[in-house]
Structures are given as structure tokens and as C-alpha cells.
């Protein structure tokens, strides 16, 4: 199952229309697409784990927090899928039902299977941007190839879906962001800072230092 999912993911990365059509035709392939999304989300979470290191999360909590962050990425992808469903319905586009669209979007996240390489210093940042563009292009391609919409209509649905997602993010994004952050804090067992300045941390620590014995 895992091998099939990885194979499906790599076929999707190569912009193979058949991979996306397979997801709509076969429940097994749809399950594999969700597995691809889960792996991709975990890889993405790991590539962004510097915030956990920065906040000095202990190893066991670190793994737990990665799992939580990965699940959050899964929900983010599925939220995109729902935005596409809403866009399609608004534009009167006929095609697969919500489940099919969600599976297509799940498979579109396949490039993030390679998110591990975003860890590489300096060049990893460029790789991360490349993956983001790759996933965006694949989402449109999935709508075009999987649903047979044709590229212009798929692009329209994609852009409209992105706009819906953006507006939704403006409305409930901050609340969801706080909730997600809170979940991460529960997982790590500590209050997390988004930006950690080492000099400020040392300053705080210095104030708490008790001078060695023998000194006044």
C-alpha cells in the first residue's frame, strides 16, 4: 500500500493525467492519495521544525509535535480542496463530488514528499519555493486532467478557489492559527515563541543566573 502510494505520488509529480484519473476511478487509489498527503504533510512539518528546535523542545515532545504539525498541514490541504469545491459549485462546473476533489488535491501535494530537502542550508529555501509553485501548478493540473475541465476552466476554478480560501483565511484564519499554535504548545508542553532571538534568550537567562558559590 505504501509502495503504491509513493508510486502514485511520483507519477502525479510528473504531471501524469492518468494518476489523477485513477484517483477518481478507484477507491484504493483515492486512499493512496490521502496517504501521499499524510506523508507529504509530515515531510513538510519536519522541514519547518526549526521553530521546535528554537524553542528547545525535548526529543520525545518534538516527535509528538511533528505529528501534530503534520496533521495540521493535512487539514490545510483539505481546506484548499473545500475551497475548490465551493468555487466549482459557484461557477456551475460539473465534475466529481467533494470527495473526489479532495482526493485530487491530496495527490497534488505529492511534491512535498521531497520537502525534506528544504532542510538543506540556504539552497533549501529556494527548494521550498519551488515546491510551493509545483504544488500550485499540480492542483490546477489535477482539476484539468482529473476532472477533464480543460486548462482555462481549471485555472479559473483554481484562482477562484484560491480567492475563496484567502477570504476564509482572513475571516477565520487567525482563530484557526491560534488554535493550531495552542495545539502545538500542548504537544510540546511549553509556551512557544514564533521568533526566537538568541541574544534575548541569553539576556533572560542571565537575569536568572545565580552567581557561583564564593561570590557575593
Amino acid at each position, binding site marked *: 500500500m505504501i509502495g503504491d502510494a509513493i508510486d502514485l505520488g511520483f507519477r502525479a509529480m510528473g504531471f501524469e493525467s492518468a494518476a489523477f484519473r485513477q484517483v477518481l476511478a478507484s477507491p484504493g487509489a483515492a486512499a493512496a492519495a490521502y496517504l501521499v498527503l499524510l506523508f507529504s504533510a509530515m515531510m513538510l512539518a519536519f522541514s519547518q521544525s526549526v521553530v521546535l528546535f528554537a524553542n528547545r*523542545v525535548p526529543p520525545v515532545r518534538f516527535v509528538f509535535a511533528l505529528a501534530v504539525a503534520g496533521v495540521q498541514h493535512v487539514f490545510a490541504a483539505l481546506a484548499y480542496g473545500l475551497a475548490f469545491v465551493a468555487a466549482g459549485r459557484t461557477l456551475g462546473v460539473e465534475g466529481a463530488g467533494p470527495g473526489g476533489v479532495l482526493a485530487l488535491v491530496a495527490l497534488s501535494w505529492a511534491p512535498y514528499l521531497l520537502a525534506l530537502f528544504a532542510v*538543506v542550508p540556504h539552497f533549501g*529555501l529556494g527548494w521550498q519555493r519551488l515546491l510551493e509553485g509545483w504544488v500550485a501548478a499540480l492542483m490546477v493540473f489535477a482539476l484539468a486532467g482529473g476532472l477533464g475541465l480543460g486548462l482555462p476552466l481549471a485555472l479559473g476554478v483554481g484562482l477562484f478557489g484560491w480567492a475563496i480560501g484567502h477570504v476564509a483565511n482572513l475571516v477565520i484564519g487567525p482563530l484557526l492559527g491560534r488554535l493550531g499554535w495552542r495545539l502545538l504548545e500542548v504537544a510540546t508542553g511549553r509556551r512557544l515563541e514564533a521568533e526566537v532571538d538568541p*541574544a534575548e534568550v*541569553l539576556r533572560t537567562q542571565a537575569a536568572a543566573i545565580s*552567581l557561583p558559590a564564593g561570590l557575593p
Partner: protein
Amino acid sequence: MILDLAFAAVALGLVVVLAAGLLAPFESLGWWAGWAGPDDMRAGEATRLRASFAPAAEQPDARVVVLFGINDASQTLRNDHERQFVADLAAALPGARVIADLFPYSAFGMPLNGDRLFAWFWQAVATPSGRLTGLLNAMINLRNFLQVLTSADHRYGPFYNFGLAQVIVEALLRDGHDPARPRPLVLVGYSGGGQLSLAAAGYVQEALGVPVHVVSIGGFLASVPGIDGVARLTHIHGSRDWLQAMGRLVFPERWATMPHSHWNRASRSGRIHTRELEGVTHAGPEGYFGREARMADGRTHMEATVALTADLVRAAVSDPLPCRLPLRARPVVDRLEEALTRRGGR
């Protein structure tokens, strides 16, 4: 057959480079998180600084910290050229102290042959004679180059550079730096060491409250926040040194298209200067530390590099310029100094 072998060799090389790249940031991140390395960010901090804190009665005109290039495996395994550079620079600056006994390619200053899991391997790779075989030498270069990129990366750089700044501050305290009588500090960095000097400079200035000047000798320089704390950066480059020029290509924030980057702001404020050495390459017999190749005026490349570096140190002494950033990381030293003063220890 030969093509297959060549392909396999290239593929293997690529895997090694990727694996090394994936592992590169975790030394400094693991150290910062407290998973690995010395426990100096917690209780050990005060004890370690106290051990280092012994201000000298006589303070020099300036202190010069030298960080060498990426082919170093340890501060104890330097090649003859590097040792001679340090000796010649110290001779040219009798009033200054030249400090070169630190290893900058680790966030906590741990040399490759230090207390590490694979220390035996690196020790075997880097022979004390400094004669490294090509492939093995490349492994040290790759490992250290990735640390330079870690320093330049906005995600990991703050932790790596902060750790390196601590290593530098400790070296200065060991040398007798007196916070009450601060002297100008010049960080001299060759190649990758130039980037590390620049990256750590901001934290060093914030910790000690002394103006920090950076002299880059063929430095592979990125646009890093540390440059905000540099009083003056002088980049010495050979006219035939294409490696240092790669920094302009590899780091987009040095491009003119990003006018608000740290580099471009420093450049506009007139704090970045360049000096060219005609005919000098990045490394080797015709490099900055070449002892045979000669400039048009008859000096060896080594002599020209030493003379120019010494001139820049003298300029820093005569015109130290003000500190650019407020003190922030100083309280640890302050508290120890206060305690020692009250005890009558100074």
C-alpha cells in the same frame, strides 16, 4: 562500462552531498535545543565565563581574531601558510593581540577531531602535516562549506552565529579582554571564515560593547543581520579570485534587486569597502597566502596580504568608529564583573 561507473560515481557523490546537506544544520540546532554539545546555554554558562574572566592589567591597542577557511579541521591542525600568516600579522602589529586558536565551523567551537562521535575519522583525514589527499580534503571542505551556508541561512543562522559569537567572546575573555577598558576588535576571516566573521560580528558587538571591524580576505560573503553591528567591513579580494565573487551570485540578497537587504543598506551607508590584490587567486601558490608568487612591486602574496590586513587593523585603532548596536547579551559578563569588583577580585 566506463560510463556506468562514471554515472554511479556522480550519483554516489550527489547522495553524499545531499546527505551532508540534510545533516548540516542539526549540529547547531541540536546544540541550541540542548540535545547535543556542551550544556553552556544553561547552568554551565556562568561557570564557564567565570573561568574565562581574567582581565589583563595591560590592554593591547586592539585585538584581532582570525578565522581561517573551510579546509580547517581543527585549530591545532593548521597548515604552514596559515601559521605563518598569524605569525607575520602579529609581528606587523606589535601593539595588538592576534588570536587564532578557535575553530569557527561549529556553533560551539568543537573541532572535528574534538569530542565527537566521528573524531577518529576526521583526525585520520586531516593529518598534522597539513597534506590532505584530494578526496578526503574535499570532505572537510564540504562539511565546513555547509556550515558556512548554515550561518548564512536565515532559519539557522541566528543560532549558529550566536554560538560562534560566544566562542569568540570566550576567546577574547581568555585573552584578558577587560569590559571596563574595551579596545577595538577586528575579526579577520579568510574565505568561509570571512562570512562567519561577518555573521557573528553583530552578536559580538552586542555582547562586549566594542566597535567591531571585519576584514574579509577573499570572503564568501552573504547578506546577514550581523553586518548591522559592523563598524566597517573591508573586503580584500584577489583579481583572479572567482570563488569570492561567487558570493555575489549565490546570495540573492546581495543583488541590487533587493535594496533593503542588510548588505545593500550597509553598502549604501558606506560601511563596506573593497581592496583588490592584483593577480591573486583564492588559494594555492598564487593565493592570498602564497609565499613564492610575487606582486608587481616584488612583495610575495603573503606579504601583501599581511601588510594590507595590518594597515586595516591600524586604521581601526586610529579611527575605531562608534558601536552600531545597543548592548544586549552583556548582562552575564556584567554580573560577574560586578561580583568580582565587590569582592575586591579586580
